[in-house]
């Protein structure tokens, strides 16, 4: 596993102010005891059950960074929104910068790649689209377009927020994303990634933070529930299923 010395992180972390956001995020058990979350200068993964708040946290970070909450770079900030669905958690975030903000930043959430594709086409940002993509995104599968964005749009000197990027990707696609992340980490990039994938979270040298009822805590790869569970399932699927469906 590589243990390169961290350099030029953008975000050291963030504080959560004690005032209430005034919505459901005030009641998320994982966030209630949290005052500060330190981010890895390279890669931080957020793991946790559905509903634990990990996507909400990545989204709040994106909004605090003034990135569109449905996914996209800064140029799409006001370009499209099908509905305002983001929570108010960002109001409580106090970002701790370690350096100047990055040249590039991007918030990618798999669930709205479809809308992003529509927005890029309909807002007529054709120049950018042709620059970045070889064919209109809608003619690619969503996995392909997602991977294209990840592979082409993510550039050196960037802070990238990815919300469940595995959602649209095959295992092979996730491995390609990991290769790209590996390349970019040598060129001043920082990633914060919410994920359910047992593969992606195995990125070497990353900090893994688990959100659960006790709060947000560091956890080692082999102890991550999605890793343990997938491993024991793949070891003995018949036994596992017999138990599950009994």
């Amino acid at each position: 596993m590589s243990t390169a010395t961290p350099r030029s992180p953008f975000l050291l972390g963030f504080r959560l102010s004690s005032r209430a956001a005034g919505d459901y995020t005030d009641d998320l058990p994982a966030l209630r005891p949290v005052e500060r979350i330190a981010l890895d200068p390279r890669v931080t993964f957020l793991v946790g059950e559905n509903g634990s708040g990990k996507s909400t946290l990545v989204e709040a970070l994106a909004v605090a960074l003034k990135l569109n909450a449905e996914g996209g770079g800064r140029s799409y900030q006001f370009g499209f929104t099908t509905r305002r669905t983001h929570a108010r958690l960002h109001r409580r975030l106090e970002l701790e910068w370690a350096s100047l903000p990055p040249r590039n930043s991007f918030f990618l959430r798999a669930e709205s790649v479809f809308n992003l594709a529509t927005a890029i086409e309909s807002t007529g940002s054709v120049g950018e689209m042709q620059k970045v993509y070889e064919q209109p995104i809608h003619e690619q599968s969503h996995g392909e377009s997602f991977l294209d964005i990840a592979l082409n749009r993510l550039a050196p000197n960037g802070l990238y927020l990815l919300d469940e990027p595995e959602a649209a990707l095959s295992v092979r696609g996730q491995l390609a994303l990991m290769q790209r992340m590996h390349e970019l980490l040598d060129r001043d990039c920082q990633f914060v990634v919410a994920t359910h994938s047992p593969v992606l979270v195995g990125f070497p040298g990353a900090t893994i933070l688990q959100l659960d009822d006790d709060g947000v805590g560091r956890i080692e790869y082999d102890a991550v529930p999605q890793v343990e569970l997938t491993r024991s399932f793949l070891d003995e699927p018949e036994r596992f299923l017999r138990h599950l469906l009994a």
Partner: protein
Amino acid sequence: MIRSVSLRREEVDASRYPFSIPALRSLTTLELHPQATLFAGENGSGKSTLVEAIAVAAGFNAEGGSRNMRFSTRASHSELHEHLHLVRDDRPQRDGFFLRAESFYNVATEVATLEVSGYGDTPLHEQSHGESFLSLALERFRGRGLYILDEPEAALSVQGMLALIRRMHELASDGSQFIVSTHSPVLLAYPGGRIYVLSEAGIVETPWEETEPVELTRSFLADRARFLHYLFAET
């Protein structure tokens, strides 16, 4: 419920998209499993295109939803469905849903707008997307239904996926049929179904152990350091 799907090859130009997709080039007739048919394949292999076309041919909205949802943010579906012939079996269909992960966000918006009842107490947008999909499957799927799910694992934790498998099993035992595309090695293990892999070789029935998601995930979990060593040496 659907017994088989045939492509009327004489009507199509195999050099044009989507008929030019390698996996679809040799498609004639595909027998579906009465309970669960699972489609696997690489990103871009055509499995979502195929599943979407089966759904539209069966009467669903291309972006997903139940059969009475008629919204569209954009018609992105291919013309494949126009050339598919579905052979039904004699089981009555009382329920149905077509879910595509990529547009579930839009379905959630639509449900909130229409204030459709039967989706649980919490509006879908206030749940996490994983939770909203699970509550859809657990509460809205009533049984004796045709359920077409395009990458339903997208928003789910492994726990969530196991809950989905359990619900699928209940519904399938009650006369429902599932047609599912997936990248998940866990979901592919759904017992008593049939797996088709889409690739350059066409559409081939494949045992679970031999599918790529299973092989890759297994070897990654078995020896991560070695796997990553080779992966990063390629760049």
